[in-house]
């Protein structure tokens, strides 16, 4: 297992390099630069700035300069927040996103899986329909509609909860976590229901049933573990996405998380910040996928981790 994990991590290095190169190329061929403004700059000033930030060098040279920095653990200063290093900005906003995303994912896992299993055990009954209808409602409204509606209802009209982040007092996590969790609940419920139904219809489960095992026993012994495999496949990237923040939720609630940096970083041409975020995201994905693959083996011993 350890060798497998180490091997996978080593093998991830070319993946990371590929990602870094692709991101660097994309962000640099995008027109416009980090210092453009409606008030134009005299050419001498522009030249001074380009020199100071090494933007006048050929791109390959800039790439290797960047890569060299990354290898030393230096992700450079942000172009937008010029007194802050990319590492600092990420260190500052990532914990917030981790907290929000983590809570949302936990909530979603419990409710989503619970609802999915419940529905799968009673297919085509009222319970099934009701659970799925609620789940589908959750994924049928864009989050940028849900979030303002939540604010309007719970913060502005009812005044139960704060509308934004830096508010004093408690409860500021509730609405953002709800908004984040809602679609995840729905996806998880659907996937787990479908997957469990599949497994429940398989030969060995039917055999088990024929042998007179109760539903609970079948779930425990045969069905739950394999049914979790598609859920795991989904969870890998979903967890990475939720933990790195949601630009919509952060915008609506004014949360200083990581998510909006993905968008504003790209729009501001904050080259270094964008690259840092891409590397962070890629590393997270690689780690989570590794975890998923290890769990595959745990859930179904016949899936070998070679």
């Amino acid at each position: 297992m350890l060798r497998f994990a180490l091997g996978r991590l080593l093998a991830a290095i070319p993946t990371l390099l590929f990602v870094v190169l692709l991101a660097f190329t994309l962000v640099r061929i995008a027109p416009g630069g980090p210092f453009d403004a409606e008030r134009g700059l005299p050419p001498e000033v522009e030249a001074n700035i380009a020199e100071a930030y090494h933007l006048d060098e050929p791109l390959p040279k800039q790439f290797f300069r960047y890569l060299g920095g990354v290898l030393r653990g230096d992700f450079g200063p942000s172009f937008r927040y010029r007194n802050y290093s990319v590492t600092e900005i990420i260190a500052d906003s990532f914990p917030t996103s981790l907290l929000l995303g983590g809570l949302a994912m936990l909530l979603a896992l419990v409710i989503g899986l619970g609802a999915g299993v419940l529905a799968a055990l009673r297919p085509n009954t009222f319970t099934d329909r009701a659970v799925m209808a609620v789940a589908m409602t959750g994924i049928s409204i864009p989050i940028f509609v849900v979030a303002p509606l939540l604010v309007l209802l719970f913060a502005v009209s009812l005044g139960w909860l704060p509308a934004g982040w830096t508010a004093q007092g408690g409860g500021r996590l509730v609405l953002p976590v709800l908004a984040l969790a809602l679609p995840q609940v729905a996806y998880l419920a659907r996937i787990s229901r479908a997957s469990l139904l599949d497994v429940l219809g398989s030969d060995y489960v039917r055999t088990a049933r024929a042998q007179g095992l109760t539903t609970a026993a079948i779930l425990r012994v045969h069905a739950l573990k394999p049914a979790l495999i598609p859920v795991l496949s989904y969870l890998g990237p979903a967890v990475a996405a939720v933990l790195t923040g949601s630009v919509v939720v952060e915008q609506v609630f004014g949360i200083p998380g990581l998510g909006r940096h993905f968008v504003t970083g790209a729009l501001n041409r904050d080259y270094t910040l964008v690259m840092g975020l891409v590397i962070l995201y890629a590393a997270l994905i690689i780690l989570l996928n590794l975890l998923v693959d290890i769990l595959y083996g745990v859930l179904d011993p016949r899936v070998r981790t070679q």
Partner: protein
Amino acid sequence: MTESQNPRRLPLFALLAGVVVVVVVAVLLQRDGEAPDVAEQNTLHRGIGSDPDTLDAHKTNALQSFTVLNDLGEGLMADDRHGALIPGVAESHVVSEDGLRYTFKLREDARWSNGDPVTAGDFAYAYRRLADPATAALYVDSVTAIANAKAIIAGELEPDSLGVTAIDPLTLEISLEQPTPYFLALLVHPSMHPIHESSVKAHGDAFARPGNLVTNGAYRLTGLRPGAIVELERNDYYWDNANTAIDRVHYHVLPEPMSEYNRFRSGELHITDSVPTDIFEQVREDFPDELKVATSFTIYYYGYNVIRPPFKDSPELRQALSMAIDRDVLVEKITRRGEQPAYSWVPPGIEGYESAQLSFAGLSQQERTEQARRLYQAAGYGEDNPLEVELRYNTSDTHQRIALAIQAMWREALGFEATLINEEFRVLLANMQAREVTQVFRSSWKGAYVDAHSFLTAFESDSPSNLAGWVSEEYDDLMQRAATQTDPGMRSRYLEEAERLLLIEQPLIPLYFYVSKHLVSTEVAGWADNALDRHHSRYLSLPGVAGGG
């Protein structure tokens, strides 16, 4: 599989799930952040839109940075709550007869936030640093008026040769390149505030970070979280500290007007940076006392690319398109916030300056439309041969609605269908500067100081902000004459003449003059509308709050 034979396994799952839910709910509902105590109450909460990029005044051109820096620092001159020029660190000044030499007498009690005295040397250092190419300053407009500045920026002279001399710690002499009647107004801008030399020496670029930044204004920086908040606290060493009412100022980063508005509505903000456009009428109804709308020193315009067809050498066509736009409809139906239709480039309200007007300003829209049709046809276009033109604007709801409205007005009046292209902001900037693909483009211009020059300079041939690519020797000549003129009346005549020329050639379509819009809680006293939309925290107070009156 043997372990899974445990029959109590399923309830265990349920138990586990229950525990997780309880924990999550507990975390969600915990009271994070203790209740605000009395000492915390004298705190002003302001929205600031997107956040400052850096608080190094020389390395930013972001309005948000300047807003914060205006609270943190103070130049030789300052502005009062109405935007009028008042003495700042300099208690008095003398101008030489030829208008080229300014001598400032600094006040003795001016102090940095660490207690050091503010000296003439701090100003001289700051101005040299601003001009020094090694600084790679972004906002050099202010310093270029000083002798030798342009050559220093271009790397032709050493920074030491800048026309500033600290004669003694309290006397600063500045020599100018040309008489610059608005020079004193330039000194208010944060880029012309002094800089604490020893902290730059000690911390390098990091001198502008909380903990390192030493400033000389009413407040000092105590905290900054990128993307979240900028925290200021009263500077006890400030010379006028006795008149600062509010102890703490928190600038909240809220780029979305709607979320900012929600924060205001739930009582978490005293002052907003903006007001959501789409629900403006509703806001006006709900918050009649809180809503502050004032004409701002900023124009919204469409530029033509005049170095490429179809707008090259065709002022008639440019005029036709401009005339076909019903500016009244634009401000009354589309923007709806009390904007003023623009028929000139320089906004009204500058003392001693009479703005020129577009030739058709006096006509009714119907007459304009008829004339526009004639001009359009004279330029060789018509029903069978409609103009093909692309209108570029940066991604934003407001810009989109205005573009759609103008597209409809052109369709209605002249019968052509403009192609709308919405581009991401920096793509549009790059395209406008390149002047290759642009035809008609949206832009805006904000005056940095209340003088016609701050607008007219944008269309000088060598101006980097001349996005139209318009070149007129006559215009440049008039601007140059105005620059060397010491008589204010004569100077204004030259500037007026320059604007008249601009409005005849029309490399741009003036659309409307912006209004600044804020929501200001009734708890806040001391707010005053002004054209530059500057509202320094030191002029505000919270009378209802303990210690805030």
